[in-house]
C-alpha cells in the first residue's frame, strides 16, 4: 500500500483571473466576447458563438478537426487562445459556403463521398482550403502529405484525396483560362423534378416490364 496524491499547484493563483473583453472578426463579422483569458479560439467559437461547425477531436493539436483559417492560413484553433487572435480575420466552415452556394471543396467532398461520420469533415475542408491558398501542392503525393494534419478515423483518406485533387485540377484549369467549373449535381433541377412529379406535370415514364 502506498499513498498517492495528485500533485498540488506550484503556484496557486490567489484569485481567479478576471474575464476580459476579446474582439474577434469571424467570417467577416465582428464579435466581442467577455471571456476568461484561457479560453481557446475553438471553445470561443463553439461555446460562445454557437459556431459548432468547427469540431473538437482531441483539444491538443493532434487531429486537425478544429482547423480554421486565420488570415487565410490554416491553424488548429484548439491550440490558440481567443485573446491571441484579436485583429485577425478568422474564417470557419460556416464562412466557406452556404446551402445554396457550396464551395467547390464542399461540393467535391459530397461528390467523392469524402467522409462518413462527418466529424472531421469541416476541419478537412478548411485544411484543404488552406492547402489551396498555400499553392504548394500539385501532385497526389504532395496533397496526401499536406493533408496529413487531419485524422479521419472512418478512413475516408482516398476519397478526400480525390476530392481535393478535383478542385485542385479545376483551379489549375481556371488559372490557365479554361472554362472548366466544378462539376455540380443539378440540385435545382432535382427540386423541379420533385415538384413536377408531385403535380403530375412530368411525362409518363415506361415502367419496368
Amino acid at each position, binding site marked *: 500500500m502506498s499513498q498517492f496524491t495528485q500533485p498540488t499547484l506550484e503556484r496557486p493563483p490567489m484569485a481567479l483571473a478576471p474575464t476580459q473583453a476579446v474582439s474577434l472578426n469571424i467570417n467577416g463579422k465582428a464579435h466581442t466576447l467577455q471571456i476568461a483569458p484561457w479560453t481557446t479560439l475553438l471553445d470561443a467559437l463553439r461555446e460562445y458563438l454557437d459556431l*459548432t461547425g468547427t469540431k473538437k477531436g482531441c483539444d*491538443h493539436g493532434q487531429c486537425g*478537426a478544429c482547423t480554421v483559417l486565420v488570415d487565410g492560413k490554416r491553424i488548429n484553433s484548439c491550440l490558440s487562445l481567443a485573446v491571441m487572435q484579436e485583429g485577425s480575420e478568422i474564417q470557419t466552415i460556416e464562412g466557406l459556403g452556404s446551402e445554396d452556394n457550396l464551395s467547390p471543396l464542399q461540393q467535391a467532398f459530397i461528390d467523392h463521398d469524402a467522409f*462518413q461520420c462527418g*466529424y472531421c469533415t469541416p476541419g478537412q475542408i478548411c485544411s484543404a482550403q488552406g492547402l489551396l491558398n498555400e499553392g504548394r501542392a500539385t501532385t497526389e503525393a504532395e496533397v496526401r502529405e499536406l493533408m*496529413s494534419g487531419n485524422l479521419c478515423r472512418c*478512413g475516408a483518406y482516398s476519397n*478526400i484525396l480525390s476530392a481535393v485533387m478535383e478542385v485542385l485540377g479545376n483551379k489549375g484549369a481556371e488559372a490557365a483560362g479554361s472554362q472548366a467549373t466544378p462539376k455540380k449535381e443539378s440540385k435545382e433541377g432535382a427540386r423541379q423534378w420533385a415538384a413536377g412529379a408531385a403535380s403530375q406535370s412530368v411525362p409518363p415514364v415506361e415502367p419496368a416490364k
Partner: protein
Amino acid sequence: MSLITDYIGKPTSRVDGPAKVLGTAKYAAEFNVPNLLYGYVVSSPIAKGKITKIDSEKVRALPGVQEVFTHENVPNYAFLDRSYKDDVAPGGSPFRPLHDAEIKYSLQPVALIVADTFELARYAASILHIEYEEAAHETELTKHIDEAYEPGRGKTGYKPPKSRGNFGRGWKEGVAHMEGQFSHHAQHHNPMEMFASTVEWLGDKKLNIYDKTQGVFNSQQYVNKVFGLSKDQARVISKYTGGGFGSGLRPQYQLFMAVMASLQLERSVRVSLTRQQMFSFGHRPETLQHVALATAADGSLTGMNHFAVAETSQFEDFTENVVGWTGTLYDCKNVKLGYRLAKLDVFSPLDMRAPGAASGSIALEIAMDEMAYAAGLDPLEFRIRNYSDFDQAQNLPYSSKALRKCYAEGAAKFGWEQRTPEPGSMRDGNLLVGWGMGGGIWDASKQPAVVKASLDADGHLTVSSGTNDIGTGTYTIMTQIAAESMGLPIEAVTFVLGDTTLPESPLQGGSWTAASVGNSVVEACNKLGEALLKQAQKMDHATFKDAKIDDVQFVNGQMRLRTDLTQGIVLRDIVQASGEPKMEAENSTVLTKLEMLKPPKYSMHAHNAVFVEVKVDPDLMTVHVTRVVNAVAAGRIINPKTARSQVLGSVVWGISSALMEESVMDHRFGRYMNHNYAEYHVPVNADIHDIDVIFVNEEDDKVNPLGIKGIGEVGLLGVAAAVANAIYHATGKRVRDLPITIDKLL
C-alpha cells in the same frame, strides 16, 4: 429499363452530405441550450485502491462552480445491478460511476465538477485535491494465462466455440504442419467525436438528452432504469454521431454524469470527455492466440486448433467470438477450439469493429499463410482447396456464398498470378515487394425494427425509425429504399432517425442496420401502399375499383395499374382526398417468442478476400502498403458509393491494426501511457495509397427479402493478416505480434 424512381443499387450521394460539409450537422456536444452548465470529469491516477480523502473546499469557493460531485455526495440511485445493465452489457456487475471509494482501473472517473463555463470547470478540476490509498494491481495478461477460465456468461447471444472431430488425430494424419502464437495489445476505438452528453432540463425531471451513442433506445432504457425516469421524462436524441466503431454501443459514463448533475441541480448540463478519457472505457481486448494446422498431401486441412485468451475486467465477462470463425471458414473435419478470459484491473473491453473476428482472423489468416508455405502451395490456391461449401459448425447450408468470386475477381484485379512465392523474390528498384492475402467471414444478421411511413398532403414521404447513422450511410440508404418502394423521387423522401420518440429500432452495430431497418422500411411502405389503394378505391376513380395490392405499382410519384400503365393516380391527390393532413403506416418486425425459437435453416454470412502489396526498405525496414484489392460478397449492395466508403475505411483500419495501432500499458502503473492521438497512432492521409473495392455479385433470397448482408465489418477481416503475410513475402520475416512496427523487422 430502369425507372426514375429506382434508387436501390445506385451510387446516390449522401443525403446528409450538405449538413456535414457545411458544419450544420449537430453532434451531442453542440446543442447550446440556454443556461447550460459544464461538467468536467476528474480521472483516477491509480489503477487500484481507494479514495481516502477529497478536499473540494477550494474548488467550491470559486465563484461560478456549482457543485463537485464525488462518491461522497452522489445519491444512490438504482440498487440492483440489473438496473445498470444496458442492452449489450456482458455478464457481471456493471461499473457504476461515482458509486464508492473503490478504484477499479486507471483513469476511472472519480469526480465531476460542474460550473458556469467550460473554462472554469476545467480549471477547477486541476485544483481538486484527492488522496488515494493504492493497492497492488494486475494488468499483465501474459502473467494470468494459467488462471484464465471459460466464460459461462457473456453478452446476450454469445455461444462458446464448439469443437468437432478429433484434432489430435487430424494433426497426426497431416503431412505438413504449422504452429504459432499470435498476439496484439488493446486497441481503443477513438472515434473522432469524443463522448459527450448535453442534457436539457425542461422542468419537472423532464429531459432532452443529446447523447453520443450508437443506440438512443439503449441510452434511454439505461437512464430510465438507473434514475427511475419514465420514457416521457428521458428523451434521447442522436441525429449525428461522430464515429462509433462499437464505442457507442454501451452508454458511457458521461451520460450518467450529465443526467445525474442535471437532476441534482435542476439545470441543463453538458459533460464532454477529453481525448485522454477516451481511453477510460471499453476497448478491443488484448488477445493471445495459439493456432496449429495440419494438411494432407493434397493440401486439404486435416486438423485445426485455435485457442485464444483475452483480457476482461474484474467486474464483467466480456466475450466475443474470436475462434468460432475458424470452424466455419474452411473445410475441416477435426477442429479444436478454445476461448478463455483472464480478469485484470482494467475497464471491461467492448465490441470494436468486427469484434472477435478481427482478432481471430489475424491469427487464422496468418496461420493459413504459414500453412500454405509449409504445404508448398500458393496461399490462394490453398484456401480454394479448403473451401467450405457447407457450414460444418452449424451443420447448415449457406443461404449464399460467393467467396469463390471474391477470390477470382480480387486475384484478377490484383494480378495475383504474377506473384513469385519465394520471400524476397520481388523487387521494385531497391525496395522489397511483398504480396499477401487473407479474408474473412462475418454474420449476416437481422434484428427487429419498427418503421413508420407517413405521406403528407404535399406528396412528401417521411419514413422514421429510431436507428442511428454513425457514418454508415443509414440516412441515405433508407431514403433510397423508401423512395424506390413508394415510387417517389428521392427529394420527396426524408428519413428520420436518432430519437426515442420514433419507432423503436436496434442499436447500430453488428452490420445489421441495413438489413434490419431496410426490410422494415419496405414493409412499412407496402402497408402505406395498401392504405393508399384503399383510399383510392373510396375515391371516384373506377380504375382501381377491383384492384388488389399486387395489381398496382408505385412509380414516379404515382400509383399505377400494372395491367394498364397509362392509368395512374398521383399519391398526393390520394392523401388530399382522405381529408387528413397525412396518411401513415407502421411496420414492426418484432418476432414472437415462437418465431425466435425456430431453428435457422441456413448459415447466413458475408465474406471477403483481400490482396495486399507492401514495399519495404531493405535497410531501414520501413513498410508502406502501396496497393490493396478488397473483394466483398455481402449480398445486395444498396448504395455502392457509401458501401465502398465503408470498405475503404475497413482497409484503413486493417492497415492501422497491422502496422501501428496499440494501446500501450505500463504495467507498473496499470495505465495506458499513449492515451492521446499523438502517440496512439492511426494512419494519416500519407499512409494510404491505392485501394480497390470490388462487390461481387451475390444474390440471396433467403437471408432477408432485400438480400442484404451488411458491410460495416466484413471489409476489415483479413486485411491486417494480409499485410503481415505481404511483409513475410517481402522480407521472409514472420511477425505474429501486431502491430508490426519497425523494431520488429530490424
